[in-house]
């Protein structure tokens, strides 16, 4: 554990043995040793998963207990955070659990259920106040009013720009597929946009959007300004376009040429071929693109806080400004959880859609 007399002081390390009663510390060590033994000696994936989850639970409980023990009742200044050993252990146990789940090859539905279960348990523990004396939760208590606002704003910024990119990107991808001549210029342009660093793109967008707001009162009334959410959404939208357009093109290209030829040959209209044959067969690849974009956006929205876009990045940059690591974590941990959840959900969706294997594209006769 790391003990600080207040939030910005350098911390001093405290071992669990110093903090917890002897029986608890010994029990904790025994469980971890058992987990390690399972990790080394047991091949069965189910048992390895149980061991990993048990280890995580005990680790979380121990940290919570230590924080409670270190914090005098009623104290609001002292900060107790998990030390480096906690994070290392958490990574090891996480790897063990992930490895076990991968080996068990659960169906997409089971994976989503597992995720929901994990989130529900963590949520219940947080609501119970189990971790209230940990430094991150102390920061949460201070920012309790702003946290849900910034969380929703984060999701809205990432999701909104994604939806806009899908609405524009998919038709653009279809167009590129139908007219291959358009492909190099469109994908090239989007590629260049992709290489612009996020901060630079925000900067580039400030001037035109600011000018737009100054010229058009209607635009300003809609909330379009040089800084704030507007440039953030526009930038994220531009970044999102490439994966969506590219995956739409690739997805349509891998649709069996024979199937499309036959569909036209038996009298489907081009529109019926697109909606009935091409899009359903390309959908798994397109959703994969959406997954990439969503995960990328959830991470990138963080930077939007720098130009007043809001979102969980606000906490991260405030934390950096105040050298308060715990505040940084208050922003960073939910971002990681969001990105991870989005990834699991959309992966599961791709798998459900991709159940039917596809015949390889056949060459034209």
């Amino acid at each position, binding site marked *: 554990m790391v003990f600080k007399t207040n939030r910005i002081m350098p911390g001093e390390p405290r071992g669990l043995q110093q903090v917890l009663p002897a029986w608890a510390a010994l029990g904790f060590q025994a469980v971890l040793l058992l987990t390690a033994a399972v990790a080394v000696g047991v091949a069965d994936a189910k048992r390895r998963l149980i061991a990993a989850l048990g280890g995580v639970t005990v680790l979380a409980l121990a940290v919570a207990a230590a924080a409670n023990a270190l914090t005098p009742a009623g104290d609001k200044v002292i900060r107790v955070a998990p030390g480096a050993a906690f994070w290392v252990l958490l990574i090891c146990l996480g790897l063990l659990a992930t490895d076990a789940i991968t080996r068990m090859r659960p169906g997409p539905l089971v994976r989503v259920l597992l995720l929901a279960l994990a989130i529900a348990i963590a949520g219940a523990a947080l609501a119970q106040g189990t971790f209230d004396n940990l430094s991150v939760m102390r920061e949460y208590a201070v920012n309790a009013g702003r946290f849900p606002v910034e969380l929703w704003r984060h999701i809205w910024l990432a999701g909104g720009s994604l939806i806009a990119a899908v609405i524009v990107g998919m038709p653009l991808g279809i167009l590129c597929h139908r007219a291959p001549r358009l492909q190099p210029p469109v994908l090239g342009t989007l590629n260049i946009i992709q290489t612009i660093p996020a901060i630079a793109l925000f900067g580039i967008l400030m001037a035109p959007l600011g000018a737009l707001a100054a010229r058009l009162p209607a635009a300003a009334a809609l909330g379009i300004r040089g800084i704030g959410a507007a440039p953030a959404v526009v930038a994220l939208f531009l970044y999102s376009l490439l994966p969506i357009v590219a995956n739409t093109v690739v997805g349509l290209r891998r649709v*069996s040429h*024979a199937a499309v030829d*036959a*569909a036209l*040959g*038996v009298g489907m209209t081009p529109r019926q071929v697109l909606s009935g044959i091409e899009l359903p067969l390309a959908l798994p690849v397109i959703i994969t693109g959406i997954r990439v974009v969503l995960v990328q956006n959830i991470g990138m929205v963080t930077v939007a806080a720098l130009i007043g876009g809001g979102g969980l990045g606000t906490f991260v940059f405030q934390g950096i400004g105040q050298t308060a690591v715990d505040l940084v974590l208050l922003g960073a941990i939910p971002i990681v959880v969001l990105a991870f959840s989005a990834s699991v959900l959309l992966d599961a969706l791709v798998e459900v859609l991709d159940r*039917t*294997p596809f015949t390889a594209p*056949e060459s034209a*006769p």
Partner: protein
Amino acid sequence: MIQIEGLTKQYGATTVVDRVSFNVERNSIAVIVGTSGSGKSTLLRMINRLVEPTAGRVLLDGADTRSEPAHLLRRRIGYAIQGHGLFPHRTVVENVATVPRLLGWPEARIRSRVHELMEVFQLDPGLYANAFPHQLSGGQQQRVGVARALAAEPAVLLMDEPFGALDPIIRAKAQEDLLGIQRRFGTTMVLVTHDMDEAFHLGERVAVMSQGRLLQYDRPAVLLTHPADPFVARMTGITDRAMKLLALTTAGEAALPGGSDGPRVASSASLREVLSELLWSGAASALVLGEDGAPRGQLTVAAILARGRP
């Protein structure tokens, strides 16, 4: 009846199909053969307007195919291709029901038609109705492809190398099935292949194409005995043309009165098969049996050899 009149397709300066004209009689099978790049597929695809002709026209029972929208025309014409082109995300039933659905048939009629076709193509509906194409064997996929092409009872069926992806044994079976289907439904068929044996076996008339031009369009025996062009002679095979000719006649057609104590052959066997049997057994003549098993006549080696000359 399909009338093809001066059909031409040019891509830029290249002429892929050059002023091709011929007629396909109702209820008959015409086969277009040619080397790859001869324009045979393009010619076929101009009949249902998957490729729009640069010049010329196609009449279907006297009506110009351009008198209606292309997709409506294609719903009246069956179309089956190499590699079957089944929709991988749709079940066998959904694949076969494609065109009746497009035409808006009532659900009961679609169901009974799909059921009938699956029976005809030896696909047990109980086993395969809800199977996906990748769960079928190559021969079954090909049969579903043809069943889909025939679902809306088209008067005309176009096939582009439909058996190209099948191994020889399945292929021979598929060819027999196709002839059976043609007799059963009386469909007019135009089939493209690069395999001369397949063309001679299936086609009542065979069109030989090279470099976009139609060199000859006639019955197989005429192509063998009176090739219009050195290329046609090469395509039909100079070295074994006598054997090919024998393959075109059945024992029943050639049988002469009389009996024989030689090997017994079915009247549906080709003279080529009978000759092979006689060479193998060393007998001088064979007894031809009808479908009912009764003797229909006899065939001597000399009589068969006489049929192998123009």
